[in-house]
C-alpha cells in the first residue's frame, strides 16, 4: 500500500459507489463497457476470448479490446445453449452459446478459443458454424517439451493473428504498436500484482468478492484504465477501518474456467476463511511480462513470455512434474492455513489434476478440502458448512 489513505468519511462513499458499479457491471450481461468503448471511434474492435488465455497485447496493438468471456454466470437462464450439450458436459459452453444466440455478444467482432480443454476446443467449431460472419480463431498455446520449438510455433501463430485482427480494424501491423501494447499491459500487470500483494498482506481489508469483481472488470476494460481503477480501489479499501477476524487463510484452486457465483465466494469468507489467493480469473494478467526492449522483436518477446513465463495450472503441461509440490510451497510461502479445491462439475483439467495435487499437499501436511459447483449453483449452505467445518478443524487441530 503506497498511496496516502484518504479519510474514512471521504473513502466510504467512493468505495461504496465503486463496488456497487462493479457489481452492477458484473451482473449485467449487456457488455455496456465494451459498447461504450467501441462507440468512441468507429474503427475500434472487440474480440472475445474464452478461458484461460487471451493474447491481450496482440489484440490491443491491432486496435481491438480483448474481452474475456467466462460463461454466463448465474444471471443467465440457459435454454437454447442446453440444446447443444449432453447432461455430462460442463455449463460453460452452454451459457456461452446462450450469450451468443441471445445477442448478448453482438458487440464482439470475433472470438478466440484457446485449447483449454476438449469442450472449449470443440466449441470453437460449433461457434464458427453458428456465426460464420464473425472472426473465429482457435489458438493452441504451446505445450511442447522443447521450449525453442514452442516459441517458434507460437510466434508464427501470434503473427498470423495480429495480421488478421489488423485487417479487421483497418490498421497496418507495426512493431511499435506491439511494443506500446506490451508497455500498457506492463502497467496492468503491476496493478494486478499490487492487488495480489494487498490481499495477502491484509485480506480483511480486501475481501474476495470485491477483488474478484475488480478482476472481472479487467476482463472488459482497456489496460491503463483498469490499472487506475485498481489503484483507486486499493486506496479506498485500504483506508477502511476493519479489524481482522479469527479466520483461516486459504487458497482457492480449480475454479479457473467456469466461474462460481459471487454468492459462493462470499459464503466461503462468511464461513470463516480469508481467500488470500485464487485461480479464479486465470489468464487475466498472471503471466510474466514480455520484454519491451525496443531492440527485440515484440512478437518473439510475447512468444517467449508465453512459453517460459505462463502461470503453472491444470491446463499447462507440467514439464517438471512438480505442480503439487509447488502448490504446497506456495501455500507455505503465503502463510496459508489450507487449500480449498473448488472445481466445476465435469471439468476435466481441474478434476484430473486434483488427486495429484492433494497427494502432494498430504505429503507436505497442508490441509485441504474439495467441492464441486456449477456457475448457476443457487444453494450455498452445504458449501458454507463444509468450509466452516474445514476452518474450525484447522483452527482447532491444525489440520482438516
Amino acid at each position: 500500500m503506497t498511496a496516502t489513505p484518504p479519510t474514512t468519511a471521504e473513502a466510504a462513499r467512493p468505495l461504496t459507489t465503486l463496488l456497487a458499479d462493479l457489481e452492477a457491471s458484473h451482473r449485467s450481461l449487456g457488455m455496456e463497457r465494451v459498447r461504450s468503448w467501441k462507440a468512441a471511434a468507429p474503427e475500434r474492435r472487440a474480440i472475445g476470448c474464452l478461458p484461460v488465455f487471451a493474447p491481450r497485447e496482440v489484440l490491443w496493438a491491432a486496435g481491438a479490446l480483448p474481452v474475456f468471456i467466462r460463461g454466463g454466470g448465474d444471471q443467465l437462464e440457459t435454454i437454447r445453449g442446453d440444446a447443444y450439450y449432453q447432461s455430462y458436459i460442463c455449463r460453460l459452453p452452454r451459457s456461452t452459446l446462450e450469450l451468443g444466440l441471445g445477442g448478448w455478444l453482438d458487440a464482439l467482432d470475433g472470438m478466440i478459443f484457446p485449447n483449454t480443454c476438449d469442450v472449449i476446443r470443440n466449441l470453437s467449431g460449433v461457434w464458427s458454424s453458428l456465426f460464420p460472419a464473425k472472426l473465429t480463431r482457435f489458438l493452441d498455446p504451446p505445450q511442447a517439451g522443447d521450449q525453442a520449438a514452442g516459441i517458434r510455433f507460437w510466434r508464427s501463430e501470434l503473427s498470423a493473428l495480429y495480421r488478421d485482427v489488423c485487417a479487421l480494424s483497418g490498421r497496418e501491423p507495426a512493431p511499435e504498436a506491439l511494443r506500446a501494447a506490451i508497455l500498457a499491459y506492463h502497467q496492468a500487470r503491476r496493478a494486478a500484482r499490487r492487488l495480489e500483494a494487498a490481499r495477502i498482506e491484509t485480506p480483511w481489508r480486501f475481501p474476495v468478492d470485491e477483488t474478484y469483481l475488480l478482476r472481472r472488470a479487467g476482463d472488459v476494460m482497456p489496460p491503463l484504465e483498469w490499472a487506475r481503477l485498481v489503484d483507486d480501489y486499493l486506496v479506498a479499501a485500504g483506508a477502511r477501518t476493519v479489524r481482522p477476524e479469527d479466520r483461516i487463510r486459504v487458497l482457492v484452486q480449480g475454479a479457473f474456467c467456469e466461474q462460481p457465483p459471487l454468492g459462493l465466494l462470499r459464503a466461503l469468507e462468511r464461513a470463516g476463511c480469508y481467500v488470500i489467493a485464487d485461480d479464479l480469473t486465470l489468464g487475466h494478467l498472471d503471466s510474466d511480462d514480455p520484454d519491451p526492449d525496443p531492440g527485440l522483436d515484440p512478437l518473439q518477446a510475447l512468444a517467449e513470455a508465453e512459453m517460459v513465463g505462463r502461470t503453472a495450472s491444470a491446463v499447462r503441461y507440467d514439464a517438471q512434474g512438480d505442480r503439487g509440490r509447488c502448490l504446497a510451497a506456495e501455500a507455505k510461502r503465503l502463510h496459508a492455513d489450507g487449500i480449498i479445491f473448488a472445481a466445476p462439475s465435469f471439468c476435466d483439467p481441474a478434476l484430473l489434476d486434483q488427486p495429484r495435487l492433494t497427494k502432494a499437499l498430504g505429503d507436505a501436511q497442508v490441509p485441504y478440502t474439495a467441492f464441486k459447483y456449477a456457475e448457476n449453483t443457487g444453494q450455498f449452505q452445504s458449501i458454507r458448512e463444509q468450509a466452516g467445518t474445514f476452518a474450525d478443524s484447522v483452527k482447532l487441530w491444525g489440520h482438516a
Partner: protein
Amino acid sequence: MIQKEQSMETQKAMLAGYFGRLATAQRDHRPVVYTFVPGNLTELLSAFDVIPVYPEINALQSGMRQRSDGFIREAERAGHSEDVCSYVKCDLGMMMKGNLGPTGEAIPPPDLLLCSFTGCFVFMKWFELLREQYGCDIAMLHVPYQGDGKLTPAMRAYVVEQLEREVIPKLEKIAGRKLDQARLEENLARSARAEDDLVHVFESAKARPSPIDAYFAGVYYIGPIFTSFRGSQDACDYYAALRREVDERRAAGLGPVTPDGPMAQEKYRLVIEGPPNWTSFRNFWKIFYDEGAVAVASTYTKVGGVYDTGFRHDPRRPLESLADYCLGCYTNLSLPARTELIARNVREYQADGFLFHSVKSCNSFSAGQLHMMREVERLSGVPGGFIESDLVDGRYYSHANIKNRVESYLQMLGSRRGAAGTTSSASAAPPASPQLHLPVHS
C-alpha cells in the same frame, strides 16, 4: 458358438505374440514406451526396437473382459472423480491391481511415456498422473489442433522440430543408440502398403450388401494398424489376407460376419460416429445385426489415422509424414471438418441413416455432437439418431434404453423408406447436393 472371420484368428495370434514379447521385455532388455493410439509413432518406435504399450487399449480390453468396473471403482476410491474419463480410471485401477495384461502376466512399467498430445486434452493429464506413479520421463509431443480447419506449414514444422529435438533424443537415450533412418523409412513404406489395403477393405462397404461391418467388425480391422503392428511385415500380411477375405465375400454377394454368423439380409445401412461401448460390446452389436443394420462407415475407425482422404505414410519424407499423420487424426480435426466427413460418408456409402453414439467419458468426441448431428442432417438430407453410454464404465450402459432407441430409429428409417416408395432411403433422401470441402491429402 461365436463365429469369427479368419482374419480375427490371425489377429489373435499376432496379439498373443505381442503380449509374449511384452512379458519378456525386461528380460530381453527391450525398452517399453507407453503411448496413445491417435498420433502414435509406431514406425519410429520399432526403428528403435522398443515395444509400445497403449493404455487406452488396455482399458478397452479390460472393458471387454468385464474387469473395468472394478478398476474404475479402485481409482475412484483413490480420489479420482466420477466425472472424468473412464479410460484413465480403468488404467490407473488396473495398475493399482498389479497391471496384469490379458494373458495374466504383468505389463512391464514404462521406460518412457511418449505423450503424443493429439486430439484429446485428457492425454496430457493422464500421462502426468502415470509419471507420478512410475517416476519415469515424458517425451511431450504437442500436436496442434486443426481448429481453423487446415493443416498449416507452421504446424507441420512445429511437430517435426519436436520430433527432432524432444522425441528422438529421448528414444535414443532409452534405446542406447542412434535412430536408424533406413529402418524408419522401410517401416513407413510397409505402413503405406497396409494402409492401401485397409482403405480397400473399408471401401468395400460401398457394395450392396456390404461385405463388412465398418464399425463393430471395423474395430478389429483397425487393431493391428492403429497399434504396435503398423510398419511391420505382420501388418502387411494381415491386411493383404483381410483384403482377399473381404473381396471373396463381396464377390459372393455375402454380408458381414457377426458373432452369430453371417448377416442374412442387409436392411439398413448406417454411418456411425463415436467410439463403441466396450463393456457390453457383443450385446451392443447384436442390437444392430438382429435388425439387419450394418455400419457401412464409422468415425471411430479413423481415430488412429484418416486414410480414406488420401493420406499415406511416406518414406521419402519420414518426419513430415509422421507429423501429417499426427495432425490428421480424426479427433484432431475441427468439428466442421468432421461434420463434412460424416456427411460425405453418408452420401458415398449410400447410407440410410447415421447414428451418433455419445460417450460420457470422451469430451473430445462428445462435446458438440448434437450440433454436428443437425449439421450432418442439413448437409446430407438424411435423419440422424442419437444414443448415449460410456466407453468402459458399465454403470452408464443401459441396454434396454439403447435397444429401444436404436429400434425406434430404424423403424423410422423404414417408414421413411416406405413413404418414399423405394428400397433405399439413400435414393429417397432429398437431393441435398451439399458442397463439401474436405481437405484431401496428396
